[in-house]
Structures are given as structure tokens and as C-alpha cells.
């Protein structure tokens, strides 16, 4: 079960006071929290040894309460923002953490008073915008590793809904099957032969949509890295439809 599916299933229950649901959610979110914390701290962290992870977990818990749908921020993105914010606070308190990334020192200069709604709001907006921007740039960089530019992606993305859904299904297949994804990450090429076999699409179709499939597969596979992009995609029916069943 992916974290997104869990979130979709348990988030509202947890917010309504279901302790068990919240517990489930926190357990499921542990790897996500860890990765978020690692990213902020810039070193490897271990459960039970590093305080940062505890702070991250607490921040995630806080995020569950503070999350508002209307913000149009995906929950995980929001949670990550809260985690980062809390960690920044923590670092400031613990002057020994001087190795933390510079941007958080500067950005969070001055006391961030979580209690003042205005300040929190401001922080949230700025941080979110920054994160989104970073994410997109990161996505671009990731694509460039595969020799794909955004312009190429525009040309490669199918205009017709049917053909697009076909390619998205292939991308999903790649993202969900470790063997295929491993092949893609390792060789930076699409395992076309296997895909023609499993998808039933023509080799030409897959080769023509190669760039699009790679981009989408990366996006779907590294969903915790590209939270905003992924969550934006998630709005479409095809991924939502499977969430419920996947979670059950």
C-alpha cells in the first residue's frame, strides 16, 4: 500500500479523532518522514537514534491536524513543509546543528511563531512556492538524465485521450514493477520488448511514446520526490480509481 493510498483512506478518519487510523497513518508515513528529514539534515538518520526523526514524526502528526483541503496543497507536501519548519525551529534551538542547509537558516531567520496565524500563513505560502519550484526544476533535471527536455515532452505527449491513457498505463506498469523500473533507472532506457509483451501495444507505439512513458514512469515511481506534480496528476480518475481497492 502506498502512502498516498493510506493518506486518502486514513487522513480524514484520523482528523475526526480515530486514533487507530492516525496510528496507521504515522506508521505508514515513517519512511516518508525519514526521507524528508534526511533531505533537510543532509545526513543519514536512524529511527531511535536521531532526534530529528522524532521531531519529523511529531511534525507529521501536527500536519494531520493542521491540514486543510482548501489550500490545494497535497497532504504530503504540506506534511513535508511542516516537518521542515519544525526541524528549522529545532535547529535554531540546537545551535549545534550548524551543518544544516543555509537556506533554512536564512529563510527562517527570526522567530517563526507558529501561533501567529499570519506568520504561519506567510511561511506556508513562500515555502510551498519554493518547494514547487524546486520540484519542477528537479523533475526537469531528472528528465535531462534521460535525454528528455520539456519541449520534447510537449511533442511526445499524446493529444488523444485514448492513446494518452494507453501510454499512462504503460508508465504505471513500469513504475509498479520493480524489475522494469530497475531496468529504466539503470540503463536509462525503456525495456521496450518487455513492455510490448505485457501491454499488448505495438512496439512502434511504445517507441514513439518513449519519452512520455519515461517521464510519467519517473513521476509515478518517485511520487514522494515529486509530491506536487504527482498529486496534481492524482486528481485524474485513473489513479484515484485504484486507490480504494489498493488500500483495502
Amino acid at each position: 500500500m502506498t502512502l498516498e493510498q493510506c493518506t486518502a483512506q486514513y487522513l480524514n478518519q484520523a482528523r475526526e479523532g480515530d486514533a487507530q487510523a492516525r496510528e496507521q497513518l504515522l506508521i505508514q508515513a515513517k519512511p516518508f518522514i525519514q526521507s524528508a528529514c534526511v533531505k533537510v539534515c543532509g545526513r543519514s538518520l536512524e529511527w531511535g537514534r536521531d532526534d530529528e526523526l522524532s521531531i519529523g514524526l511529531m511534525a507529521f502528526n501536527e500536519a494531520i491536524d493542521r491540514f486543510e483541503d482548501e489550500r490545494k496543497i497535497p497532504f504530503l507536501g504540506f506534511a513535508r513543509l511542516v516537518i521542515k519548519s519544525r526541524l528549522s525551529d529545532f535547529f535554531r534551538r540546537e545551535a549545534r546543528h550548524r551543518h544544516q542547509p543555509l537556506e533554512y537558516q536564512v529563510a527562517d531567520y527570526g522567530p517563526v511563531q507558529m501561533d501567529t496565524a499570519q506568520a504561519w500563513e506567510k511561511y506556508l505560502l513562500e515555502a510551498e512556492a519554493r518547494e514547487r519550484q524546486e520540484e519542477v526544476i528537479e523533475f526537469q533535471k531528472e528528465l535531462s538524465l534521460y535525454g528528455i527536455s520539456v519541449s520534447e515532452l510537449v511533442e511526445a505527449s499524446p493529444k488523444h485521450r485514448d492513446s494518452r491513457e494507453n501510454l499512462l498505463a504503460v508508465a504505471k506498469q513500469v513504475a509498479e514493477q520493480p524489475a522494469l523500473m530497475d531496468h529504466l533507472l539503470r540503463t536509462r532506457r525503456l525495456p521496450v520488448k518487455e513492455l510490448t509483451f505485457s501491454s499488448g501495444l505495438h512496439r512502434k507505439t511504445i517507441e514513439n511514446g518513449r519519452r512520455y512513458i519515461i517521464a510519467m514512469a519517473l513521476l509515478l515511481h518517485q511520487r514522494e520526490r515529486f509530491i506536487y506534480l504527482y498529486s496534481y496528476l492524482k486528481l485524474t480518475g485513473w489513479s484515484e480509481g485504484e486507490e480504494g481497492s489498493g488500500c483495502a
Partner: protein
Amino acid sequence: MLKGILVQTKGPTGVVMTPDGRFVRVLLTRNHRTLGQEVTGTELKFSSFLQGVAVAAVLILVCILGLWTKMMPATAAAYVALDINPSLELAVDNDGKVMEARGLDEEGEELLKKVTPEKLEVYQAVELLVAGAARYHYLNDTNNVVLATVTPARENAKVVDEEKLEAAVNHTVAALATPVKVVTERATVQEHKQASKKGVSVGRYLIHQGSAKQGNQISIDEVKKKGLGQLEKEKGIEIQHLLPHPKLKVKEVLKNRVEAGGDKENPRTPGKPVQILPKERDPGTGQSSGQSKHMPSGLIIKEQIQQRPQNNPPQNRGVPEQNKPDDREDKEDEEEKEEDKNEQRRDDRRQNPLGQPEHAKQIKDSILDKVQEKLKNNKDNKGGHGSDPAGGHSPGKPGNGPKEKED
């Protein structure tokens, strides 16, 4: 408008990723330029309306082109200008049908009011018109020349066959009481254009040009107003000499058909350019005979020389000719007598030289003499060509066959 996460910006445009997983290049609104934000923009492609317009435009174009190609050859397959005195012009479509007939002068228009050649096959139409002209007395003793000029709209287009056209005219003319000279000519599109610029038929235009070339000035007004027969008589010309195209055969058929008994000529087969009929009744043309004597006689001699060694069996000539006169055989009975006399005379002349090519020169001389003599005799010689004994046979009366065989 399209909503999506901005993935890339470049000037006023950017690339967004839409919720349904499309990457689209959009024209951005001014305010939202931050990457990763959800932005709205207009998709950079032809709108469906524009696409529709484009498709419609293409369709219309195709339609127009289709119609164009359908119309164009139809209007312009060929033109047949008919000059009797009424001048008129028939536009012929690809199938050889008359699509439009217009009078080039008042008389032509009048004639067209009385006769409608539209939708007929061009040959039938010409027959009808000539018959009509005769019936309404456009074609009479003074006006006894029919000039049919074919202008194919495209080079080498064989929509209207001159031979057949001539045959058609002759066919009609043969039934008339008056002798009529029939000339067919071929004109080019340029000539046709220039002629219509000047407001005359192509045939008349060619005559005008030809006359200018030969120093025999006929003004365009005269060409326009006067009937061809009238012109010939007044100017002392033979229109076929004025017609310019040397590569084109100018054929003339003279029909001599007098109630009192005359010689009758049928449409000729190609390659026999000249015929002369011993008897002509039109005194007006008499003037021309002197002038026209020289050229045609030369022609005849050539023909004679060619024919002599070949030793043409008379049947050859007889065969094609026998078909045509069928319908008027009844009328021809009288004529045959007259004809037979003529034949006999010629046959006599020919008997010796036949099969003896070494005598060709003598024969030539004797023929020339006789032709010239004949020309003198026939003051009213209209065709202006020397009498051609061989040609004289050609009417191919059924009665002639056996006679010639004896040669």
C-alpha cells in the same frame, strides 16, 4: 484556457502539465510565472474554430477546383466558328456537344433565334445551322461560301474533327439548290482571342490577316459586315488563299448543282486538295478565276504526278465516296448523265498514260493544257483550281465505278 502546473517558462509561453497528464505549451497570462504553480493559459494551437475554418476553406477550395476542372474543359474544349454570312460560334465541350452558340453578328443572332443547335453534337449542329441558313436565305447565290473554323482550346485536342465537320457541311450543302463552297480551317487559341477582341469570327479574322499579308487589303469592317461570298466577288479573291496556315489543309468543296444538270462534288478525302467543277453558274466569281489560276494548277499537276505512277485503281477512289451520296441518289440521276459525259472525256485523256510513267511529262503538259483550257472555258470557275480529272471522278457516283474500271 488550460490549467496545469507550470513546468517550464520561455518568454510569454510556457509548458504546463495538466491534471490528465498532458504536457502542453501555453501562452501565459502575465501574473503567474512561477514554476510549479498551477497556472492557466491558452493552449498554443489552432483553436477548434480556426481548425474548422481551415477545414472548411480546404473543402471549398477542393470544391472550386473540382468545379473548375469540370467547367474548364467543358467551356473550352473547342470552338467552331461558322461563317456563312451570319457569323456564329459554337462552343463545344469534351464530348463534342455544343454547349453554347452565340451569334457574332446580327444575322448570326437572328439565325440562332430560329435554330437552336445547343446540346446537339457539333456536326449535327453545323448541319442544322447550314440548313437553317439556307432556309432563311442567308445562304444564297451571292452568299455561297461556308467557312468553318475550328479552334481547339488546347493543342492537339481532337474534339472536333475537321474532316467530319466538312463532311457534315457538305452533306447539308449537297441538298441545296445553290452551289456552295465549303472551306474548313483550323485556328489557334491566340487567333481566336484576337478575333474576339476585334469582334469578328476567327475565320473572318484569318481572312483579314491573310489579305493584309498578301497586300490585298480588306479592312476589318468589311470582313465583319460582308458575307464571305460577297467578299470574294467584290474583291476578287478566294478566301482559301487568304487563310494562313500552310501546314493546315485548306479544303474546298464546290458543289455544282444546277437544276439544269450540273456536276456534283462530294466531300473529299484528305490529301486531295483541289477540285474543280466544269460548270459553274455564278458569274460573280468569274473575276477571280484569272487570279487564282496559277496556284491551283500547280497543285493539280503535283497530284497528277503522284497519282500517275501509282496507277490508282479507280475502285479506291470510288469506295469512300460511295457511302456519302446515298441519301441523295434520287436527285443525282439527272446529274449522272452530265457527269458521265465529263467522265468519259477525262477517261479518254487518261487512257494512254496509265501505267506508263515515262510519259509523265507529256501527260503533265497535256493535263496542264487541258486544265487551263477548261479554266478558260469555265469563266465562272469558282474554286479557281485547274480542273482535276482525277478529282472529277471522286464524286463516285455509283455509275462511275464500272466505267473507271475499264481504264
